[in-house]
């Protein structure tokens, strides 16, 4: 609750800070604001409160998700130093919108009422439409924003329709009310309820880019400025899964038999579409877009096999995935910028293709190592956080006895190795003319922390236990 209020105020503050002559204060201010919000998040630790007339819930789980979201946002913002060098960029507005979008994400994490869910989704999405198109002179960025907006608006309609149907069937917008209806129907569940449930699910599945609602993802992730791609693929995804988990585990766990097959089919589709298509990509950024689809698939396993372990599995997986993804995009940002500077003088391949990483590790051991660790983690190699994320996820499937889902997931994770290792091969085993890249100290800290976190969670995954 406190972070929501604070972030709203801080967002406005940042907009006004933008009127100052010097831009230098913006980045530290944004980081400070995020830190403060992160700190006040834990005020209610170990207590459960309902806020705003029962609209928002604050418990340990929602605080952990909040911490993941705010932590990811902090790291993304910390990597945003390049705004300061770009004349046409408007950092105050970017940071302000980022903070506002976080308010939406937090509402999605803690909603107790479907209206809050809707408002949260909209705040987050609208902010993302704007940020996707923030590179105003880049046609691809404009195109991506428009696509994202059109498809997002379309899905919002479907989601709203679903909510209305649910209200029609249950007479309640609250999670508890819907649960009461679903668990203990007076005359049997109405058809409206089922259709509403499916439509609401579809709306949220679109936001986390599950197949077959994933078509926007590669185009948008590819077109958006890399920094915001990192933000979208971590914060938005985590918030989306937190919302899905809340919805399914609280309101709809009573009708598990109705939705799990649908979700299992969607999971399979997502895993196959994400992993298989990623194989053919030549652009690293586009590959990461497909990779984010495939990770949505792994996260969905936990929901399709909803059970005791799902909570822990989703929290751990989102954390592992977010940290590794941010580190990977962080390195990409540096490499692409270096490449762009070089191509202006010499000309060469695209700055975001796999070739851009050739020989990176030789001249920039730190960047190479950070990238290698995140790729290993995303591929799920042991002793990285990603391995345990997958392990937790797979054991939820085992717990429910969904062996075939497990088989698909394991096979697809083998395919995943192929494209993640392309980067490692390029960095370590290919010759390339990458010059040493200057890395700002703070940037370096972020990469080091992300890498250490990935390895640390891989060695001692028990650290997170007992938190919630």
């Amino acid at each position, binding site marked *: 609750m406190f972070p929501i209020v604070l972030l709203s105020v801080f967002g*406005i503050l940042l*907009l*006004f800070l933008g*009127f100052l002559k010097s831009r230098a204060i913006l980045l530290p201010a944004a980081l400070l604001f995020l830190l403060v919000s992160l700190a006040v998040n834990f005020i209610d630790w170990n207590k459960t409160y309902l806020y705003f007339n029962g609209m928002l819930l604050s418990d340990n789980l929602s605080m952990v998700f909040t911490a993941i979201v705010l932590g990811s946002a902090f790291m993304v913002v910390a990597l945003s130093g390049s705004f300061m060098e770009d004349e046409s960029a408007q950092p105050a507005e970017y940071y302000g919108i980022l903070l506002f979008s976080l308010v939406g994400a937090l509402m999605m994490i803690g909603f107790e009422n479907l209206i809050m869910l809707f408002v949260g989704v909209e705040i987050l999405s609208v902010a993302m439409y704007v940020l996707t198109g923030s590179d105003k002179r880049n046609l691809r960025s404009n195109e991506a924003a428009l696509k994202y907006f059109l498809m997002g608006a379309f899905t919002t309609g479907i989601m709203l329709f679903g909510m209305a149907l649910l209200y029609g069937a249950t007479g309640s917008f609250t999670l508890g009310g819907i649960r009461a209806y679903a668990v203990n129907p007076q005359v049997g569940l109405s058809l409206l309820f089922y259709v509403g449930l499916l439509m609401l699910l579809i709306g949220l599945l679109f936001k986390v880019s599950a197949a077959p609602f994933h078509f926007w993802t590669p185009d948008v992730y590819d077109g958006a400025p890399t920094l915001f791609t990192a933000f979208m693929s971590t914060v938005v995804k985590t918030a989306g899964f937190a919302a899905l988990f809340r919805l399914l585990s609280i309101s709809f766990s009573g009708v598990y038999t109705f939705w799990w097959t649908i979700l299992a089919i969607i999971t399979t589709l997502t895993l196959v579409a994400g992993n298989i298509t990623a194989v053919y990509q030549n652009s690293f950024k586009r590959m990461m877009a497909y990779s984010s689809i495939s990770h949505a698939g792994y996260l969905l396993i936990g929901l399709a096999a909803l059970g005791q372990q799902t909570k822990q599995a989703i929290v751990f997986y989102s954390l592992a995935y977010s940290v590794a993804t941010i580190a990977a995009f962080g390195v990409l940002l540096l490499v692409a910028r270096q490449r762009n500077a070089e191509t202006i003088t010499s000309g060469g391949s695209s700055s975001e293709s796999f070739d851009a990483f050739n020989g990176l590790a030789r001249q920039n051991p730190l960047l190479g190592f950070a990238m290698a660790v995140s790729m290993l983690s995303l591929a799920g190699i042991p002793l990285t956080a990603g391995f345990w994320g997958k392990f937790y996820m797979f054991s939820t499937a085992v717990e429910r006895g969904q062996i075939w889902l497990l088989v698909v997931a394991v096979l697809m994770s083998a395919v995943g190795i192929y494209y993640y290792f392309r980067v490692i091969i390029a960095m370590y085993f290919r010759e390339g003319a990458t010059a040493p890249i200057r890395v700002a100290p703070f940037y370096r800290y972020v990469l080091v922390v992300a890498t250490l976190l990935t390895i640390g969670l891989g060695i001692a995954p028990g650290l997170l236990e007992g938190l919630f």
Partner: protein
Amino acid sequence: MNTSYLPSDYLPVLIQLLLALGFIVTTMIVTHSVGPKRKSQKKDDPFECGIPVQGDARTPISIKYFLIAILFVLFDVEVIFLYPWAVNFKGLGLTGFIEMILFMGLLLAGFYYVIRKGVLKWE
């Protein structure tokens, strides 16, 4: 209160709907067929204040029109909140007053931001 409705209870609604639709449709058809029609090239041309048509209708317009319009709608709609508040002023009491001050404060902050950004400067 009767909580269960039979489909037949909706009959008046249906009748009204049909009447409303029917009136519009009938009027349109009747006026269309009754009125005299003379077609010529001049008459079929798009009409633009008596001046001959020039160029494409889809010309770029200044974004400023759009911004001003949006801002107008924004502030206009938000001011609507003042009416119910004013009506219930006594009932809502001090809490309501503080909330409204916060709301107006945010609105004014936005207004200040708009002005500082130079959105309202026409040149």
